[in-house]
């Protein structure tokens, strides 16, 4: 049942599970808490980067449950065993794609616009938004965190079938 790419990270109190196959690059985790979730680093999750409560808050916002958490006392035997394994060769949200120069813009099927590279974002009020090297923009029109994706496209069953040359 378990994908060999899955990883788990603990601070002794809780364990965060990372399931790459579920990630849709909503990028909420590292926009909110780069101290813990940093796709430019290996391992990309640093459980010492913030207090447990902050980590669970951000993990709870992951729209696809690519990130989930459990109290350590609730771990199964198998999960406890896996704690001892070193996170080598892990994938990160970044390594799921290939960062390229120039800036890479990827249109996700029925999902957001994922951007990676060196870029600046100017918001609808003409103010520069928080600098980053990877983010995702809403394409379904219904995000509650505009201009970014928050995973709402799944709830509303957004499709982008009506394509011009984007197909």
């Amino acid at each position, binding site marked *: 049942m378990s994908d060999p790419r899955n990883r788990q990270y603990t601070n002794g109190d809780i364990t965060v599970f990372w399931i790459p196959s579920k990630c849709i690059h909503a990028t909420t985790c590292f926009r909110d808490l780069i101290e813990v979730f940093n796709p430019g680093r290996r391992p990309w999750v640093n459980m010492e980067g913030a207090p447990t409560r902050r980590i669970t808050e951000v993990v709870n916002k992951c729209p696809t449950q690519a990130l989930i958490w459990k109290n350590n006392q609730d771990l199964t035997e198998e999960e406890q065993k896996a704690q001892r394994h070193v996170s080598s060769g892990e994938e990160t949200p970044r390594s799921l794609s290939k960062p*390229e*120069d*120039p*800036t*890479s*813009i*990827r*249109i*996700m*099927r*029925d999902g957001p*616009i994922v*951007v990676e*590279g*060196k*870029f*600046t*974002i*100017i*918001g*609808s*009020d003409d103010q520069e*938004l928080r600098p980053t090297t990877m983010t995702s*923009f*809403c*394409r*379904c*029109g*219904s*995000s509650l965190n*505009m*201009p970014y994706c928050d995973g709402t496209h799944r709830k509303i069953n*957004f499709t*982008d079938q*009506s*394509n*011009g*040359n*984007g*197909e």
Partner: protein
Amino acid sequence: MENKLTLFKVIAGGPLKVTGPFRIKGRDGKIIEKEEPVLLCRCGHSSNKPFCDGSHKRNAFSE
């Protein structure tokens, strides 16, 4: 001027305007040849996705 940054401008009630160096891959993973500036649909209603076709005006898109 060599290291020109890519600029994403969020247009209020409208598309995302992209200028500067970039490469776009469509939903099938294939590169789309397109010169800047590019206007990417944000409202979800364009008939020419991923590009804007002005549909946000008809649908009174706001955020």
